[in-house]
């Protein structure tokens, strides 16, 4: 209806139906895409050009260092010493087993392999959203797997497996172990601390708040030192906790304090109506938390939780400070080997370490995005 017709009509009745029309022609194709996304205005065009220039400047250097100018095959550091401009990959091949197992006795490496394969399989089963019987996977992973791992890795004369004490554990094995224990314990501990901090019972509240604030207010290194030196003091006379166990406890407690605050944030966001809906059908406190509040609150803060996991994974490099031989420490030890000294050995080692940490962290990040997408799709509100 045009303005003219509108102006002299006070009553109107539609006599013919308005037909559905297709939307105005959409711009399509690569040129249209580029115009819309890369050159939509002078600022965006300038940014696009600057980014291209930056990539042109950086990428060739990286390609040269990592690939074209790198040494790929050599039996010792000689070739690398002669080659100043590229990575020294033979160093990585030669030390790969040391990176993976640390000083774990070579004849017993199969025990580590077995634990890692079983662990990886269980994790895939557990995290794969469409997998059947994931509760069985959970049971195996959280109960059977830790026992199996401990028995296999440490060994026992009674089973005919030579004992390998924890000071011989190292490399990727230890990094994964510390991270996994940290991740597995920090979430439930964090949830309990968050519940405690929101509790109306004054003593529970004070203990949880105090714990969270103290741990969060202290550098991780100090927590590790305290776990190392103070844990034995809390245990009965004659009990010395294993030297690997101490930083494990420290890591889990440290991560739990951060986790608690993330979880509490999610619980804070739950509307009061959810508690009231639960109460009105007769659910008790623990049932309300477990069935109503936590599933929603945790889903809401998945990005924060995974952020914490990622930080935790990288922070495990700090356990080296209390004498634990983690992956980064094996890299450091290896590039100080005089056989392999060359101008680029340490850089090669550190790039390898960076790639290792990145792959795991990126994997966690992507997985969490997938979970979020699934949750959003399922609920649609």
């Amino acid at each position, binding site marked *: 209806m045009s303005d003219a017709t509108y102006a002299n009509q006070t009553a109107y009745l539609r006599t013919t139906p308005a037909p559905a029309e297709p939307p105005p022609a959409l711009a399509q194709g690569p040129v249209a895409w580029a115009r819309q996304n890369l050159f939509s205005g002078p600022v965006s065009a300038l940014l696009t050009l600057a980014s291209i220039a930056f990539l042109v400047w950086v990428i060739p250097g990286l390609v040269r260092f990592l690939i074209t100018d790198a040494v790929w095959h050599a039996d010792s550091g000689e070739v690398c010493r002669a080659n100043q401009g590229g990575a020294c990959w033979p160093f990585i091949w030669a030390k790969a087993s040391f990176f993976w197992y640390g000083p774990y006795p070579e004849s017993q490496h199969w025990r580590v392999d077995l634990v890692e394969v079983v662990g990886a399989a269980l994790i895939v089963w557990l995290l794969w959203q469409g997998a059947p019987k994931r509760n069985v996977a959970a049971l195996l992973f959280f109960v059977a797997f830790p026992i199996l791992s401990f028995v296999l890795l440490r060994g026992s004369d009674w089973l005919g497996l030579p004992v390998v004490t924890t000071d011989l554990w190292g490399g990727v094995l230890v990094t994964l172990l510390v991270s996994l224990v940290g991740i597995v314990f920090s979430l439930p501990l964090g949830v309990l601390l968050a519940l405690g901090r929101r509790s109306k019972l004054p003593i529970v509240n004070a203990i949880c708040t105090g714990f969270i604030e103290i741990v969060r207010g202290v550098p991780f290194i100090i927590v590790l030192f305290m776990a190392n030196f103070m844990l034995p003091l809390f245990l009965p006379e004659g009990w010395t906790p294993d030297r690997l166990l101490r930083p494990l406890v420290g890591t889990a407690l440290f991560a739990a304090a951060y986790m608690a605050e993330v979880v509490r944030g999610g619980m804070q966001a739950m509307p009061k109506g959810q508690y*009231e*809906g639960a109460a*009105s*059908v*007769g659910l008790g406190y623990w049932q309300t938390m477990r069935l109503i509040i936590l599933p929603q609150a945790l*889903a809401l803060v998945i990005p924060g939780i995974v952020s914490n996991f990622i930080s935790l994974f990288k922070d495990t490099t700090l356990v080296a400070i209390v004498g634990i031989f983690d992956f980064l420490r094996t890299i450091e030890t290896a590039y100080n080997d005089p056989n392999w000294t060359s101008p680029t050995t340490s850089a090669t080692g550190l790039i390898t370490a960076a790639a290792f940490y990145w792959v795991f962290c990126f994997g966690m990040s992507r997985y969490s995005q997938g979970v979020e997408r699934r949750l959003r799709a399922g609920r*649609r509100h």
Partner: protein
Amino acid sequence: MKPDGTLTMSAVAASPAARTGSDYAVELAGVHKWYGAFHVLRDVNLRVRKGEKIVICGPSGSGKSTMIRCINRLEEHQKGNIVVNGTELTNDLRRIDEVRREVGMCFQHFNLFPHLTILENCTLAPIWVRKMPKKDAEEIAMKYLTRVRIPEQANKYPGQLSGGQQQRVAIARSLCMNPKIMLFDEPTSALDPEMVKEVLDTMVSLANEGMTMLCVTHEMGFARQVADRVVFMDAGEIVEMNTPDQFFSNPRHERTRLFLGQILH
């Protein structure tokens, strides 16, 4: 003025057993409540017989929600006695659980659990509170979902339903616990106009089946149709109480007349 006066008694005279205590589903006697220094409920006295339907109205902020929420202990009263189905509400957690199992409640904003399907919303409490096997719980849930006429939505999530459908799910969820008493706190005021009727129809059919109901609402047509008594609250007090006929045609208190004048036109 004692609200639970002779008038009420004459209104219930048809029932011979009205005077024995066990006949009351809900009894509030001299109930007071404060929020900090704010006196929100002042000497509230109300007795609701089994099977009786009470409609509660009054201006916003007069304490209607607070009163009805005291009955299932979502709010705690500080003075007086509340006896629900023969159980006196005290700080004893077991008694609170006992009362909540017998009392269903529907809220203005439904308060469904958005992470669970409609069916799971309905079976959750029977399974975890009544310890019912999942199969039986689902059977009962489907029965009530059919009664509120949305069995086909059972596997959707609350966010995918309209407001009217969500409120009907909320009613079904309460019914699955087989409550003796149902509380409604403005169940239709958050709904679009065209959905009010479907919810009211559900409530009417519930009333016709003999459920004891306390219902905060300003749907006066509903009050006329099903209420045994209409309670008018203002400033934390019960100001007037009467049969719907008398209440609407012959309001006796000045404040009631003022209120009815505001909402009936």
